[in-house]
């Protein structure tokens, strides 16, 4: 639901000023922060948010994919399901977790755990942080496209409350696969984009070194995503970025998440699902020409929610 700037301005109480100036340098700084190696990952948030957590593994089909961590936990005395993309902090863990690039098995594990959430009526919380789904021949053979597509569909079908939070880098179909929630939020220094800056520059500029230029063009920042109606809230980070203080970052995230779940739990499941569908129907920006004369632009403004 891409909205005009004025529309976004009218939303009060969001921590990010919609018109924070965003120069190429500023955007690149955010891109760097979003990928900072000390930035909290799902496994950093989970012990801070949950009083108990039990990891669940495997898609029941082919293998366990460590690029996605999934499990059940106790959040403010509620059972919840948490699904997070885990990049890995050191070289060894990064290799093990494939840099947070999941194969189809990761999304299928996510769906299996969502089915458990649906059974027990537990909210689903996704923590998004991935450069994208893994580009590999074997992943394609086992249906990478279909896995992402069915994960999107599964999230649309859930009747339990769902909250998706981009905590780091949310790039490409690998991110939206876990992003189709009742409330979508971004951390202040996270990014959400159709592709990583490197991927975009390689394709559009035919030069992988143009990634700063690509980042500036994609404008993948929380402020913009909020302005475009892609996310509902921007979660502030501790001064200097979430990596400076994991505890404080988790506490801020906790506050927004708890508020969202508290609101969502008031809505009946079928209505919540309906609203979720409406929410994702509205997103986009296009022009609609006059019917009779297709050359005249009638409405230059982007389509969006009221």
């Amino acid at each position, binding site marked *: 639901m*891409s909205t005009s700037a004025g529309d976004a301005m009218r939303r009060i109480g969001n921590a990010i000023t919609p018109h924070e100036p965003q120069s190429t340098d500023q955007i690149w700084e955010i891109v760097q922060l979003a990928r900072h190696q000390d930035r909290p990952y799902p496994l950093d948030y989970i012990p801070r948010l949950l009083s108990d957590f039990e990891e669940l593994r495997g898609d029941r089909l082919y293998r366990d994919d460590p690029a996605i961590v999934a499990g059940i936990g106790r959040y403010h005395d509620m059972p919840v399901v948490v699904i997070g993309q885990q990049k890995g902090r050191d070289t060894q863990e990064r290799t093990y977790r494939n840099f947070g690039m999941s194969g189809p098995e990761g999304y299928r594990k996510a769906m299996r755990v969502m089915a458990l959430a649906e059974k027990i009526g537990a909210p689903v919380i996704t923590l998004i942080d991935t450069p994208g*789904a*893994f*580009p*590999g*021949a074997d992943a*394609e*053979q*086992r*249906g*990478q*496209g*279909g896995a*992402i*597509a*069915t994960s*999107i*569909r599964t999230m*649309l*079908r859930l009747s339990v409350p769902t909250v998706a939070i981009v905590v780091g880098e949310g790039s*490409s*179909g690998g*991110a*939206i*696969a876990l*992003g*189709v929630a009742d409330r979508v939020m971004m951390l202040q220094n996270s990014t*959400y*984009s*159709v*592709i990583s800056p490197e*991927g975009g520059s390689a*394709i*559009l*500029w*035919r030069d992988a070194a143009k990634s700063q230029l*690509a980042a500036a*063009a*994609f*404008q*993948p920042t929380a402020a*913009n995503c909020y302005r*475009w109606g*892609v996310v509902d809230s921007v979660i502030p980070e501790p001064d200097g970025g979430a990596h400076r203080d994991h505890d404080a970052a988790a506490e801020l995230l906790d506050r927004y998440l708890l508020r969202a779940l508290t609101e969502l739990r008031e809505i009946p499941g079928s209505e919540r699902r309906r609203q979720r*569908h409406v929410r*994702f*129907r509205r*997103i*986009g*920006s*296009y*022009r*609609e*020409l*006059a*019917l009779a004369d*297709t050359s005249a632009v009638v409405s*230059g403004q*982007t*389509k969006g929610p009221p």
Partner: protein
Amino acid sequence: MRRNFRVCTSCGHHFKVSGKERLDQLANFESWNELWPELRAADPLQFTDLEPYTKRVEKAEAKGLTEALVAGDLSVGRQPCVAAAMDFGFLGGSMGSVVGEKLLRACDRAAERRVPLIVISASGGARMQEGVLALMQMSKTVVGFEALHEAAVPVISVLAHPTTGGVWASFAALGDVTYAEPGALVSFSGPRVIEQTTREKLAPDFGLAETQLRNGQVDDVVDRRELNERLERVMRILSRESSPEPPLAMQWAQQGASRAQRAARAVPRMSRRIRERLRRGEGPQ
């Protein structure tokens, strides 16, 4: 070529087809009405790569194309449907906000008219020039397919060369029935990206329709010249009953006499009671 559906008569190679010609083909070159041609790309990010996005769109529109997806009402043979075809000639068939919105409207229209939806994909993926808004068309189009799910209306997905990226990873993979054209590349990541990332040489048949059939990802590889026939059959099979309940009872009554006698002749061993019931056309139980 046009009458041969742009398939080479000598080697069977399937050439690319524009969105409008696709719908011509589905309609067997009868007339059909284009839906929502007034939807046009905006430039929400004021995007420029090697060329401004608006410029790219202008150039594509100058070729007479409206957008990367063309939708229409038509009939395939005797089966009415809503059809949508992607146009690789329009910015590589990339899915931006217009593609998402048009496809969503096509889904709603098919659901409302209770006729099947046919979508022919040919796309490099999400339209990068619309940034994250293009990514969001993946979820938007799946919402459309969910509307069809709730309305119990079938959707047939046809994958033409190439069906990749965010298109393959959203609606295109969610057909009730999914066909691919011979030789079509069907893949989420592009072969070049995969080779660069994994430093492995891909097999020559990587991601091709025929490979994806073996991989269980599509129902069949269908020659474009036979596509209409197949689509019509699927739609005929999945159509509602012409009259929900009566035919069964009627058929039962009508067939009673002749069928029962044949059956009874075929089954001399069955109990006398059953044979008598069958002879009276009462059915076996």
